[in-house]
């Protein structure tokens, strides 16, 4: 047993960030900072791995490694943390992607390294904090805490030609609009659960049993939609997605990876952790509109992605498509109807697995785009071609990640998408049918736009020879880039062929959550 | 209506008229010296109202301080300041209409409420030995405000010196 395991997990990056600030200035301070930050970030990964693979009980539906202390007594705010099958994989993924992001950045970030690594570690604290918080107040604090460093990462280290400051503030304000409404809903729930003698609660577990506004559908709906908006913007669900392509395009590679890999998951995580257990009735009453938004995200996201000529924007829009499956899965799991618990659990499992997979796959794809951009200084898909022969390692990795993304059986993406559809056909058959279109378009966009444009075709020797005079050189992946991507590729294959490693954990908690709300 | 009351009314309206005429003079005259003289008239009118209302002490103080001290100071200031004597400054600016309207509104509201209120009239007449009583009150009930005022005056004095010092 590790005492204060989760608190350690939250605090370690923060401490690391503080140490980064304290490293003395000097000629070698940048390399020292990079070296330190990467090594330090491995500690949370090791701790999270130890917690998940050794101590975590995948068959227990209750919270594990719980800690609870009174924090602000007068309003009954507690420092309450804990993980279950829903959050444990995401916490682990956060620590993994942070290590990879920092490792990759240590090679490509040359300006203002101290601030970059400080912000990155601060961001990790915010993200882990959200996943382990079981008190809504605490959740909100971490939620906002992650916002500021991400803003800086995009605005300062973004690509100058992609209007980083504009994109960053857009990302910031969009998220903030949602979160302030969530704040009001949090206050309302607290006051609704308080009585004349006892204070209200911010505790997510207690709220799930107390169900604030259970008898007042109007107020419950207001609170629901307030929180919904915060999460939907983060996911992002159509029509709240417009910040995403800008933010992704502008962000530095590691920032994009974290944004796609983890920050988007905060939204879907919130759906499952907050909206489903606390407002099951309202959610059920609104399943159709939510599922329709998910459908639009899926189909529209894939179509718009297909229309892109910018590699990074394409991947960004594909996120809209993929995150749509998660929402579809959640909606399918709680939809009213005669479906049995197993079908619903499959849908929810699929949604949760899709979160994890999308983090792995899209994280990898953003690395891949970033690596190409580092060399070519362009992301215009039309300017490439024939890279499969010219840079075989890069080609192989891109091929694998693309196939995982479009849902080729044997790779991770297939499992989760299949499960989402398997569940959705049971509860929302019509919608699920339409969403299959998204799969088709998604496959088309990857095969036609990415693989054909980049890997196949003829390598334009003349053009790139010309470019070489300007210091642009297309060479195959170097060792550190392969090292960065290797763990993600391994995960894609592992989950693709042996999904039970993670599904058991997820299933326990799906059944527990759905058992609470579906009679 | 007793003669006493009639006289009170007559006195009140006379004094009120003097105060108003003075006030109008003070704001309408373009020459600042005349405006200051108008102010004196207005102060005297107000003092007169106090006398009519049998608040002799306040009346005397009003004349001593406002007429005797403050206006004289103002006159000194005007005479010692170059340019102000001859200068005719405009008493109007572009916002006078809006200001007048607002002032009228406020006046209407106050007048309506004042007329509609059932005032608490003291049952007994104020005794004649008013000044010792006021003195005693200042030293007992109002001792703290009294001291606060002294501090306030000190601060004002310091401030005046700071502003005026070369």
């Amino acid at each position, binding site marked *: 047993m590790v005492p204060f395991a989760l608190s350690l997990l939250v605090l370690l990056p923060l401490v690391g960030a503080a140490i980064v600030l304290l490293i003395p200035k000097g000629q070698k301070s940048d390399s020292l900072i990079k070296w330190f930050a990467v090594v330090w970030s491995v500690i949370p990964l090791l701790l999270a791995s130890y917690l998940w693979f050794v101590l975590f009980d995948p068959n227990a539906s209750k919270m594990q490694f719980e800690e609870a202390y*009174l924090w602000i007594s007068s*309003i009954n705010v507690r420092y309450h943390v804990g993980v279950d099958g829903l959050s444990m994989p995401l916490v682990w993924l956060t620590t993994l992607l942070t290590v990879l992001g920092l490792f990759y950045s240590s090679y490509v970030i040359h300006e203002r390294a101290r601030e970059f690594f400080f912000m990155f570690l601060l961001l990790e604290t915010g993200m882990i904090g959200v996943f382990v918080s079981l008190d809504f107040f605490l959740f909100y604090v971490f939620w906002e805490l992650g916002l500021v460093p991400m803003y800086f990462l995009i605005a300062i280290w973004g690509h100058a030609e992609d209007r980083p400051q504009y994109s960053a503030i857009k990302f910031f304000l969009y998220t903030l609009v949602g979160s*302030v409404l969530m704040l*009001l809903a949090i206050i309302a729930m607290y006051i609704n659960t308080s009585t004349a003698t006892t204070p209200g609660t911010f505790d997510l577990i207690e709220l799930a049993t107390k169900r604030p506004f259970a008898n007042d559908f109007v107020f419950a709906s207001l609170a629901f939609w307030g929180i919904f908006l915060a999460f939907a913007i983060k996911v992002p669900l159509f029509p709240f997605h417009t910040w995403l392509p800008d933010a992704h395009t502008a962000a530095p590679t590691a920032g994009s990876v974290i944004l796609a890999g983890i920050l988007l998951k905060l939204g879907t995580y919130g759906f499952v952790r907050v909206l489903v257990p606390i407002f099951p009735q309202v959610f059920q009453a609104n399943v159709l509109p939510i599922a329709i938004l998910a459908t639009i995200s899926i189909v529209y996201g894939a179509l718009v992605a297909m229309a892109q000529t910018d590699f990074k924007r394409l991947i960004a829009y594909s996120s809209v498509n993929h995150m749509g499956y998660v929402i579809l899965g959640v909606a399918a799991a709680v939809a009213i109807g005669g479906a049995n618990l197993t079908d619903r659990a499959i849908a929810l499992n699929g949604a949760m697995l899709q979160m994890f997979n999308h983090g792995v796959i899209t994280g990898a794809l953003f690395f891949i785009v970033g690596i190409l951009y580092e060399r070519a200084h362009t992301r215009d898909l039309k300017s490439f071609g024939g890279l499969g022969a010219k840079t075989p390692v890069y080609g192989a990795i891109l091929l694998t990640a693309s196939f995982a993304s479009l849902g080729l059986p044997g790779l991770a993406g297939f499992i989760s998408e299949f499960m989402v559809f398997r569940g959705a056909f049971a509860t929302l058959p019509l919608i699920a049918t339409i969403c299959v279109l998204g799969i088709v378009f998604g496959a088309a966009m990857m095969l036609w736009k990415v693989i054909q444009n980049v890997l196949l075709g003829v390598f334009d020797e003349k053009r790139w020879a010309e470019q070489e005079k300007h210091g642009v050189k297309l060479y195959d992946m170097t060792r550190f880039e392969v090292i960065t991507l290797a763990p993600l590729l391994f995960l894609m294959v592992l989950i693709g062929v042996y999904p039970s490693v993670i599904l058991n954990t997820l299933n326990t908690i799906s059944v527990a959550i759905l058992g609470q709300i579906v009679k | 209506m007793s003669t006493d009351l009639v006289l009170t009314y007559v006195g009140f309206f006379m004094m009120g008229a003097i105060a108003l005429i003075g006030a109008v003079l003070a704001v309408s005259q373009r020459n600042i010296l005349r405006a200051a003289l108008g102010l004196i008239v207005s102060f005297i009118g107000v003092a007169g109202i106090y006398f009519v209302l049998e608040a002799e002490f306040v009346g005397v103080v009003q004349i001593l301080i406002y007429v005797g001290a403050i206006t004289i100071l103002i006159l000194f200031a005007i005479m010692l300041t170059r340019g102000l004597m001859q200068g005719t400054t405009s008493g109007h600016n572009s916002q006078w209409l809006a200001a007048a309207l607002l002032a009228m509104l406020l006046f209407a509201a106050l007048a309506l409420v004042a007329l509609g*209120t059932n005032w608490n009239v003291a049952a007994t007449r104020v005794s004649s030995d008013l000044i010792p009583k006021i003195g005693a009150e200042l030293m007992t009930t109002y001792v*703290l405000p009294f001291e606060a*005022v002294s501090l*306030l005056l000190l601060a004002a004095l310091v401030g005046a010196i700071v502003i005026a010092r070369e």
Partner: protein
Amino acid sequence: MSLSVPDLNLRIIAPVLIVAISALVVLLGELVTSSAQKRGLGYASLVGLLAAGGAAMGLWDAHAVAFREMVRADNFGVFLTLTILAGAVLCILLSFDFTRAHRIETGEYYALILFSVTGMLLMVTAADLIIIFLALELLSLPLYILAAFKREDERSLEAGLKYFLLGAFSSAFFLYGIALVYGATGTTNLARIAASAPSEMLLIGAGLLLVGFAFKVALVPFHWWTPDVYEGAPTTITAFMSVAVKAAAFGAFLRAFLVALPALAMDWRVVLAIIAVLTMTLGNVAALLQANIKRMLAYSSIAHAGYILIALVAMGGAGVSAALFYLLAYTLTNLGAFGAVIALGEGERERLNVSDYGGLARMQPLLAAMLTVFMLSLAGFPPFAGFVGKFLIFGAAVQNGWAWLAVVGVLNSLVSVYFYLRPVVAMYMSEPVEGWGAPRVAPLVALALVLALIGVIALGVFPAPAIALAAGGLGR
């Protein structure tokens, strides 16, 4: 004739007395010190303020009235006393080098600040409208002078004059209000006003009192003086005014309306709610348009007055404690922000334009980080004091049935994020501006900044003790 001596409980006004005596000492010290020794007067002021703080702590839980119910020592007053003293201490710490650089280092500077603090402390312990009025004058008068303290600077003079004229105007309103309240109830004592029957005259009187308070805390539409005065006054004085006057005036405002006029709450709550909406919205929207950081902070202070007004509208224990906590949080945060502006000055030049902050993150990373924290706290970001303050205020509003007001407040704080981020954006993402060297921060200024920073973070991360102290202290 025999006089019945009132209860001269000096202990209750000990903090006020100590500060007043320090003011006199500093004033006398001015006579016997050379121009090189003026710093000593600043230290003397600090000692006086800290001693007053000690005396104020001794009044915790005293719950007493004195001087024929002219003053009242309750925890509400003690909390605000300590808040004001904290603001004054930080202001004086910031002043040492600022006054020297701007050639306004005199004993009167410190003495006038102390006189103003005397008025403020009296104001938050006052239980009678007469005392409130006199305290209001005592706190304002030195500030009129201080605003104009840089006499060779025309904008400073204009600030002082403008502040004086409008302040005198608002005092007249306030005094008229007192007269009408007295006419309606026959008393100026807050508790006895509450005991008498409400009438139209009382309502009009309350309205005029409201105008007086609204001027002092800068509520729309009585806020016009604020940007000009804040811009023109010496920055240390602006910093002081923006926090301490607010704390003092809101203290009396809350006390007058919650203790004396709860019977009229039906009427004034709606009016104040509307004013709160206007104040927040106008403050934030106007702040968006400012390029000058002092003007921006001026409009932001207007907006913050609007947030605090929400707490007054909410009423009840939750509203009062939220307002108190917010005032404390705002005091530390705003002084920190102004402190950073002061620290970044070079001699008599100050970085007044947002664009002057370009590239500071590289030249002064620590200072840039501090200013970022203060800006985020002002914007209401966790885990800083400003967030908890806003949370408590909006919580109080929702709890007492003013959810729509909380919604407006929340949307407003959203707007505010944009302009609070602008200096941050400049510091971290713009190139350094020509003509500015790397700033050198004086040790005492650094001390003030660190103290403010510690306060902002401590109140944000461990707010429980302060919330407990702010709760339920308003004596009736």
